[in-house]
């Protein structure tokens, strides 16, 4: 059964399901409304033997990454200070092409697709038939939430925790949604584009 046939069959019961405009290269991509992600996955698993969840991740489409999300290490300043040769021949710092301006080479304009949303990306596959489908659903950046896939695919357990940790997206129904990678003291959600880093004693 190809992805097309599955899509048409599923569209009967999930009207929000549609083919995505933006392609994920080499895999069929569908857009799913956030509230029916769990139901679609359940159907995919039970009826079309999609038994394997590859990826859950998210993309923050709000635009350029905030340079303040990257702490400038003191080591770099140290290197520049050490780079200053002798005091009498010190160069004006404007001549140092050291990339203190950051990030370099990025166009100033916002990308065309900049919207105030998170996009959740699910990759599910049926190992028996070799079909892999990319499900995408958009959720608002304010109080982002989506249903959890915990219980359908156990692989969702940690991946959802990771997405929660790095993006702050709540997965409703996840029994153990807490930070996984970053320490408990972490402020903010680092992978959001507007994340601003607060320097601590380790930086």
């Amino acid at each position: 059964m190809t992805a097309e046939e599955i899509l048409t069959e599923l569209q009967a019961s999930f009207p929000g399901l549609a083919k995505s405009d933006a392609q994920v290269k080499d895999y069929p991509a569908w857009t799913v409304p956030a509230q029916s992600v769990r139901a679609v996955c359940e159907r995919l698993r039970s009826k079309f033997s999609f038994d394997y969840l590859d990826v859950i991740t998210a993309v923050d489409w709000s635009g350029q990454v905030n340079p303040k999300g990257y702490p400038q290490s003191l080591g770099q300043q140290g290197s520049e200070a050490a780079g200053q040769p002798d005091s009498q021949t010190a160069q004006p710092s404007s001549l140092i092409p050291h990339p203190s301006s950051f990030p370099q080479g990025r166009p100033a304009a916002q990308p065309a697709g900049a919207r105030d949303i998170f996009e959740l990306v699910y990759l599910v596959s049926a190992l028996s038939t070799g079909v892999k489908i990319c499900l995408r659903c958009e959720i608002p950046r304010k109080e982002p939430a989506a249903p959890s896939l915990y219980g359908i695919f156990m692989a969702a357990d940690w991946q959802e925790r990771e997405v929660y940790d790095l993006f702050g997206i709540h997965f409703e129904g996840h029994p153990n949604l807490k930070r996984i990678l970053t320490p408990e003291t972490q402020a903010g959600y680092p992978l959001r584009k507007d994340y601003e880093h607060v320097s601590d004693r380790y930086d």
Partner: protein
Amino acid sequence: MKNYILFVSEAFWNTLKGLWVTLKVLFLPAITVQYPTEKLVPYPRFRGMLAYDAEACIACGMCVRACPSKCIALAKAMPVPQQELCSSSGQPVSPEGKRVPKIEWYTIDYGRCNFCGLCEEACPTKTKALWHSLDFEAVFSTREEMTRRWKRGDDLWGTARRSADGQFSAVADQIHIQDVPVRK
């Protein structure tokens, strides 16, 4: 019972075979390289400590841009227009008419260097001004010592600031496998 005896004898036999493997190796020569007295010379492509030649450098800044960990800094010797500095072509300015910019000082923070070779690949000069030597033995006792500085006239290993007196001096604490580092 028969199975039990079979199992025990098989286990015993496998154990003996395992003992034989280690015993065999006991009487084979060791493959150890006795480091301080025997030294491996790395293969020519090895990416060791960066060496720099201030004479060949045209101060284009390509290496600075290529470095993923931003460990390189440099300053040009003569004031040149800003756009030239940032020209992405990286070509030396043609000899007639204009002067090729030269380096005033050049620093590499070895402590942060990735040894990835991107700067060497980016270096546009014909004989590379910046390249990975085969030298891998370098040890520092303070953090600021790790920054090497070159000015014109320095040798390939540059100078480092001594934490004791704050002066830049040639580095004597490194042992180089090559007397003249291989120039790629």
